[in-house]
């Protein structure tokens, strides 16, 4: 836990420094500087159960993402943060009996911070590409074969990237499509192997596709 908070402090300092650097040229630019967006998206195979037990047949969990984004543009750089809440569309079902897990369903809150390059396409919009860390606050329910279900909660740090494109709809409003990928796993949270120790972790890794609208307030 101490290690986790030390990491959090370091990342917080880096994020603050980046925000400070980005805020400097803001006053020098005329438009498309600070944007607030809202989006929906999907995340397929939430939990990556088949990665933890490669012998299972799985009907993977799918989740609906609802969230907002905050984007700061400065020349050819951008910073993007926000928050995504993942809601279960269908839970994950293990189809054969080779694993103790019968069903799983996770929901989570993702807090990413990306920094990268933006490529403005004149009046049409822009293309952008960045990378960075993200925190995941996850909770879920695991139903074991012949046993009770167990609720789990965890906080994890992961890393990933974003690439997206914005199309101008109105003077200050743009439509955006983003592809995000994260690599993030929690510490072990429960026992699914029958041994004496916890082995099962929540895996937040995977691809997300988001579709949203962003409004540039400055």
């Amino acid at each position, binding site marked *: 836990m101490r290690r986790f908070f030390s990491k959090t402090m370091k990342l917080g300092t880096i994020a603050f420094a980046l925000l400070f650097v980005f805020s400097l040229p803001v006053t020098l630019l005329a438009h498309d500087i600070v944007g607030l967006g809202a989006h929906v998206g999907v995340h397929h195979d939430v939990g990556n159960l088949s990665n933890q*037990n490669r012998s299972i047949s799985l009907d993977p969990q799918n989740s609906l993402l609802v969230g907002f984004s905050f984007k700061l543009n400065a020349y*050819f750089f951008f910073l993007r943060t926000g928050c995504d809440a993942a809601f279960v569309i269908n839970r994950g079902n293990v189809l054969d009996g080779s694993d103790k897990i019968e069903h799983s369903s996770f929901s989570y809150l993702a807090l990413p911070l990306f920094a990268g390059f933006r*490529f403005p396409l*004149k009046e049409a919009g822009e293309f952008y*590409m960045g990378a960075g860390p993200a925190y995941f606050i996850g909770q879920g329910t695991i139903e074991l074969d012949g046993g009770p279900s167990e609720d789990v909660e965890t906080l994890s740090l992961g*890393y990933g990237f974003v690439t997206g494109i914005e199309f101008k709809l109105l003077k200050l409003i743009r439509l955006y499509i983003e592809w995000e990928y994260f690599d993030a796993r929690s510490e072990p949270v429960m026992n699914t192997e029958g041994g004496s120790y916890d082995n099962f*972790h929540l*895996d937040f890794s995977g691809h997300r596709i988001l579709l949203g609208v962003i409004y540039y307030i400055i």
Partner: protein
Amino acid sequence: MKRQDKMRRRIYILALIAFMVMPSALMAVTVNGAMGMYGGFAPSLGNDLQSAYQYYVYGTQSGVDGLNRAQDGYSTSAIERLIGFGGGIMFKLLLMDNYQFRLGANYTKSTLGGEGETLFGATPTTLECKYGFTMYDVPLTFGISIPFWKDIKIVFSCGFAYAYAKYTNRFIENSTTKHKGTFTGWGLPLVILIEGEYFITDRLALSSSLVYYRGSSKFIEDGSTSDGVTDYARINFTGYRYNAGVSFYFWSI
């Protein structure tokens, strides 16, 4: 010399002349070149870092992911996948403004993650783990370059890379027994690349790229024999790389 051999020699000479004349015909179309350098990061370098010893002795089906275990009364810490940092240089040949060949040379080394303490066995036994990964690769891709006015170029390309890597692992069981593995090998992973370039002058551009590698080496035998254990592993090149850098075009775009 036989008549047949003479004929064959003439065909070879004609083919050689045709091959040498071809570029002059190509020069009729727009040709440009660029070189650049970049740095970046690679989450999940070496993928799950699985090996036969880890599978059979420590009972993990998914390498480092499955090795993470915890129990009350035991001191454990998370072993995260490796995060690599690296850099590279590239050379690009652009034909007719819209098509490009890209040749790169990259170096990536694991810098964060891959270290921690876990448990294994029916009677929990502590296990200290440490992983390392160093990779050199030469990707060659062909793709479409889409220019947007004189400011931006967006490129989609794919191809393959010659990748050479060294993967190491070290395990200390119960603070006494030590096992280590060293795997050195090569592979030809698939490469898919998306790249954006922002021209700050008519020849100098800031670039950013996202690259996906997919593939692994053949099974490689452990090169460390001092521990008396022979391990086997595939070096897994699958993963993403995010790079940022600069490109310099030989001629104005």
